[in-house]
């Protein structure tokens, strides 16, 4: 954050400067997305993950086909995750050189890829359940902890990172027994992009193909 130096305006230009400032403020307000009704709190972060986990538990015990479950997971992922920031983070610095059309196509392809990949992992939780166990602040976001209970194995920890910086409460990272989704996907997407010698369009095509 840069700090703006404050100077006491002299009486002569005060009126015009104030006018300019308020006009600028009006412009900024008009271009900003609608402010969230309520800022994120420990309670709203937890309730987001409570609802998310209850939807996941419903899907993993629905007995539906793999294809149907993966569609359900993609829908859950779009509604509960800040897909745009997760996709941008996975692409890393390469996101800077992408056009907005490429970013948009990449984000859509990435959403399907992540939903299929992580949906398959969650599908292995069939017959089990996830339970939220706690929540606490980390830097400027909240971390919700949960335990996954699977038949025949000891419970393991799943952490969800929740922020409202997209304009509403959404999760942007998921950490299973210490293994971090953003770090994993930055490595994987980086490797996929290297294989395509930095060609983002080829990467997007690969992501659409990736099972």
């Amino acid at each position, binding site marked *: 954050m840069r700090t703006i130096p404050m100077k006491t305006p002299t009486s002569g230009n005060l009126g015009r400067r104030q006018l300019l400032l308020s006009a600028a403020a009006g412009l900024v307000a008009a271009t900003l997305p609608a402010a969230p009704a309520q800022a994120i709190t420990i309670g709203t972060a937890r309730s987001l993950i409570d609802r998310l986990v209850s939807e996941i538990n419903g899907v993993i015990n629905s007995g539906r086909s793999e294809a149907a479950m993966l569609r359900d997971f993609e829908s859950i992922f779009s509604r509960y995750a800040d897909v745009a920031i997760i996709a941008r983070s996975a692409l890393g610095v390469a996101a800077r050189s992408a056009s907005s059309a490429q970013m948009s196509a990449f984000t859509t392809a990435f959403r399907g890829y992540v939903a299929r990949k992580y949906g398959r992992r969650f599908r292995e939780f069939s017959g089990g359940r996830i339970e939220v166990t706690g929540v606490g602040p980390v830097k400027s976001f909240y971390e919700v902890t949960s335990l996954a209970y699977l038949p025949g194995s000891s419970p393991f920890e799943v952490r969800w990172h929740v922020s409202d910086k997209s304009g509403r409460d959404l999760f942007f990272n998921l950490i299973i027994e*210490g293994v971090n989704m953003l*770090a994993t996907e930055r490595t994987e997407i980086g490797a996929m992009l290297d294989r395509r010698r930095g060609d983002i369009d080829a990467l997007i095509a690969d992501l659409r193909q990736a099972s």
Partner: protein
Amino acid sequence: MAAALAGCATAPPAAGISDPYEAQNRGAHAFNVGLDKAIVRPTATAYGTVVPGPVRTGVSNFASNLGEPGDFVNHVLQGQIEKAGQTFFRFAINSTLGIAGLFDPATSIGLPAARTDFGQTLHAWGVPEGAYLEVPVIGPSTERDFAGTVVDVLMNPTSMVLKGDEASTARGARIAARLGDRYRYSDLVDSILYESADSYAQARLLYLQNRRFQLGQQDESNAYDPYEDPDLR
């Protein structure tokens, strides 16, 4: 003494990835993937398909139980007296009521496994993680953890006691348990080894992050805030 040792030093927090032996490690990784493809995966699939689930669980329990005395020693060396006690009673209960460890009644009465190893003991003594290593046959490790594995194998109390046929049975059970794990987690392992764009880099990241988690270290990437990352602007 152990408590004093454990208390006297704290390993520095792990951060990032140190991989100065990447070229050699990638060679070992290629070997390990080849080994998995040619032998481990097909054998694990056969084992998982032919041997019924409850029998595999029994074999896996039996192998884990043989590891408890080593875990006990490591907990003591780390000054983890409560976990050492838990491990002692688990071994006593599962070796008797659990019929030589084939069953795990200890978990049902509130004494779950508290697995550990000499790498963790070294960590408790303040030894830093060191460079990342991928070791042929053994797989992902670090300089510290590989040293720990060598000590655990050479100093295993169970191997010191068991002789002849008993020792062979123990070895067989350990290998079968590893195959059982490979079968049980086959979708996950396959996705890392055969579906990743760079399976070496994925295995390295997964190992380091999960290991730091096991050791109770806070990995800095787990406090990463993409909204504040200047690289993403």
